[in-house]
């Protein structure tokens, strides 16, 4: 009956969970499944979805130009992740080491760009790299580049702006791990004769590896799906998978094609996620074996 406390608790749980469960099923789960379904539907000439089923779209993905785009998306994302980590590890370490007052200030400085308009930040770089922009003019004055050089519309510009955008997301998990790490271990290693870089590599890095893994995920995954950055500063030479998807939707008006490319992106995003989950589980087990606190 309704007076049974267990049943009553179950009912209360369903009642408060139901609104978000329904909403997210309707607007996250169903649409994601639809992407996979539409990849197997033909396009109709009006930019919509035709009747029947076909393997044609999926088969047509395997073209040299698509492979080149996929390859570029991968290396740009990997490079962005690597550069972000190289900058984030010393920064996270410094913040964790700082006095309470400086730590709060630095953290605030890391968090603020995180909330400033993404589009505005990309635009700031676009105007700096513009042929009439400040950086171009400065490099020209220093004699480092000729007046004909272009800084924009180049894969390097994409990597630069992506590092700029994703670096705050990388610093935070590294800082969180460094803060929990007992920094005296680094000093102990130094006292025992380790050189600074050795102490860093053999003691500090393994100690914060879980933070590093999270940092890799939060840069690598959004990098794979980048769209605005290559669109605004990349030009044709810096096109990524996201640009192809948008082109299929807005220029070619071919939704099944866009769906097939998006399905590839979904799978590409899932792969690192699963890999890190497995690695983390393994490292947890290793901790237990080595007698460290889990």
């Amino acid at each position, binding site marked *: 009956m309704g007076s049974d406390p267990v049943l009553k*608790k179950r009912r209360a*749980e*369903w009642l*408060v*969970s139901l*609104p*978000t*469960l329904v*909403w*997210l099923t309707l*607007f*996250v*789960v169903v*649409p*994601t499944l*639809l*992407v996979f379904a*539409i990849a197997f539907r033909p396009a109709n000439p009006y930019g919509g*979805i035709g009747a029947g089923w076909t393997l044609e779209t999926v088969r047509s993905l395997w073209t040299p130009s698509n492979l080149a785009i996929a390859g570029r998306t991968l290396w740009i994302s990997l490079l962005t992740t690597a550069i972000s980590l190289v*900058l984030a590890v*010393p*920064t996270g*370490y*410094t*913040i964790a080491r700082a006095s309470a007052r400086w730590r709060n200030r*630095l953290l605030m*400085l*890391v968090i603020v*760009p995180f*909330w*400033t*308009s*993404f*589009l*505005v*930040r990309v*635009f*700031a770089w676009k*105007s*700096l790299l513009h042929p*009439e*922009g400040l950086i*171009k003019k400065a490099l020209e004055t220093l004699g480092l580049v000729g007046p004909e050089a272009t800084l924009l519309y180049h894969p390097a510009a994409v990597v630069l702006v992506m590092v*700029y955008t994703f*670096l705050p997301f990388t610093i935070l998990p590294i800082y969180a791990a460094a803060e929990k790490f007992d920094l005296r271990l680094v*000093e102990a290693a130094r006292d025992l004769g380790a050189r*600074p870089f050795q102490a860093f590599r053999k003691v500090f890095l393994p100690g914060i590896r879980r933070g590093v893994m999270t940092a890799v995920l939060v840069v690598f995954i959004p990098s*794979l*799906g*980048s*769209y*605005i950055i290559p669109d*605004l500063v990349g030009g044709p030479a810096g096109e990524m998978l996201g640009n192809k*998807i948008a082109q299929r939707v807005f220029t070619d008006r071919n*939704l099944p094609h866009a*769906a097939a490319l*998006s399905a590839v*992106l*979904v799978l590409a*995003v899932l792969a690192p996620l699963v890999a890190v989950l497995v690695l983390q589980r393994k490292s947890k087990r290793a901790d237990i074996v080595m007698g460290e606190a889990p």
Partner: protein
Amino acid sequence: MRRSRFPIAVTALVMAFFYLPVLILVANSFNPARFSSRWQGFSLVWYRRLFESPEIWQALKNTLVIAVSVTAVAAILGTAAAYALHRYGASRLQKVHYTLIYQPLVVPEILMGISLLMAFVAAGVPLGLFTIFLAHVTFCVSFVAMTVLGRLQDFDFSIIEAARDLGASPWQSTRKVLLPVLMPGIVAGALLAFTLSIDDFVITFFVAGPGSTTLPLRIYSMIKYGAPPMINALSTLLLIVTFTAVLASQRLARLKR
């Protein structure tokens, strides 16, 4: 033993890297020159041009209408979700619930945009302000839920039981005990939802229809099709709005901790 200065030097460089581009942009919004490399004195000419543009006002109106309604709905849904996650965290239903809520935080925006577009096209929903509203609520709910969940983490549920023991009805104990404690978290989450909605470009771009241009969409087309430094002025105004909201939300999240 001397501590290495290298990490501090990197940190200083990173901070300069974060802030210089934005500071230069703000400075240039007061520069009447067409190109940013020449400073021609302080002027508000781009701001005046901005205020004279009817498209900007229309886009601002759309943006605010969406942001306010999204904030209201996302705050309610997100708070209920956070409560469920915290109170019944161990159950299998909540594990599914948590995975669903976490999804929009990890999935690249373009995937969310394209999948929602497919869903709206398949269901025959006309694209416009309403579809933007639905899309924004979907990602804002997760951010509100996570913010409120953070607040709930140090909430002691025995207070609620104490209130019940003292004769409060379930509704009274919720309204008089739980909600006041959660309020700073809810407001912080709502402010976050508000700024995210105002700022969103990628998802909005996919689900917008004719006549539903928002400020970010407007800025994008100005960047793309070479509108003058008016964008600097518009960006500066947008920065001020988001800064204020974030500072307020940070204050509230820290309150009474």
